[in-house]
């Protein structure tokens, strides 16, 4: 790797894989996931009883995370960046899970205070 190679890469970035065909493919995936969300919200959720209803929100969250993956990995191109950059962005995001756990726990305590 000469320094010239590095400069060329730094200037243009690696744009492997994101041609027009791929861009539209990702669009259809995102549109399909959104459609599934609508079908669940309008067609399935209103007809479910208590126990089965508990699976609706986790399903939404999983579908949302799928959409987030496709946007970040392909539209924002993160999948094709160096492993170091991917780690620098993804690992700090994991700290959010900590906040979710702490505040969910806290909110259960708030319910007890109110009742």
């Amino acid at each position, binding site marked *: *790797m000469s*320094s010239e190679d*590095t400069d060329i*890469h*730094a*200037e*243009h*970035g*690696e*744009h492997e894989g*994101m*041609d*027009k065909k791929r*861009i*539209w493919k990702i*669009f259809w995936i*995102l*549109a399909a996931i*959104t459609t599934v*969300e*609508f079908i*669940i*919200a*309008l067609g399935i959720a209103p007809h479910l009883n208590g126990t089965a209803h508990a699976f609706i*929100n986790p399903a*939404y*969250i999983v*579908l*949302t995370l799928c*959409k*987030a993956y496709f*946007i*970040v990995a392909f*539209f*924002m*191109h993160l999948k094709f*960046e*160096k492993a*170091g*950059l991917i780690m*620098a*962005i993804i690992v*700090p*995001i994991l700290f*959010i899970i900590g*906040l*979710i756990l702490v*505040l*969910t726990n*806290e*909110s*259960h305590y*708030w*319910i007890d205070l*109110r*009742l």
Partner: protein
Amino acid sequence: MSTAVAQHVDEVKTTPWSGGRSPFNVEYGKMMMWFFLLSDAFTFSTLLISYGALRFSAPTWPAASLVFQSVPFTSINHAPLVFVGMMTFILIMSSVTMVLAVEAGHRNSKKEVITWMLFTILGGLMFLGCQAGEWTHLHSEGFWWGHVPTTEKLKEFFASVNGHLPPGDQQVRTAHQFANLFFTITGFHGFHVFSGVIINIIITINVLIGTYAKRGSYLMVEKVGLYWHFVDLVWVFVFTFFYLV
């Protein structure tokens, strides 16, 4: 032996983490955009997670399918999710045109970059218009920061459990929380969309006057593209947690 060691020490290292090369192999501004977006992701997370915590701790909550069932600008009234579905589609579509602008930039095709950037700006403006319509509609119903509809009207927004509506004081309290959180979070997101549109316009002007053609690289388009996709990404979460859950 000793000469061999000396040579080994003096050798200029070329591996990414030994200095002299960028380990991330991205331009400085693009890397900083990523770190800015990381910090912005934390900001939005704190907002959405506090929304979640307040909602978890509430005994009842306004039903999304009852609050959001009108389509502003039309007389359609009992169609939950239709309007917000349109908004989601507009924003995803403008993300696609943005990534097409970036792709055209890689081919140094100035004309195509301009076309796709203009479509992206149009999408952003359409989204903002829809959001203004949504806010106006909710405001006309009586929701605003610190304001909720009258007790009579408020009943329409709660689903009954086993044939009973939640008690009136619970309705008023949770409707206040809902209104404050809704306007704060969608407002903060809308402000990001607004900033994104302004930045996109500035970049498009730069493309038009040939700044990046002269520079030989459309990397700036890629950088604002990152910001624009992030705005779309946040909307995906706002959509799920306000309209679906």
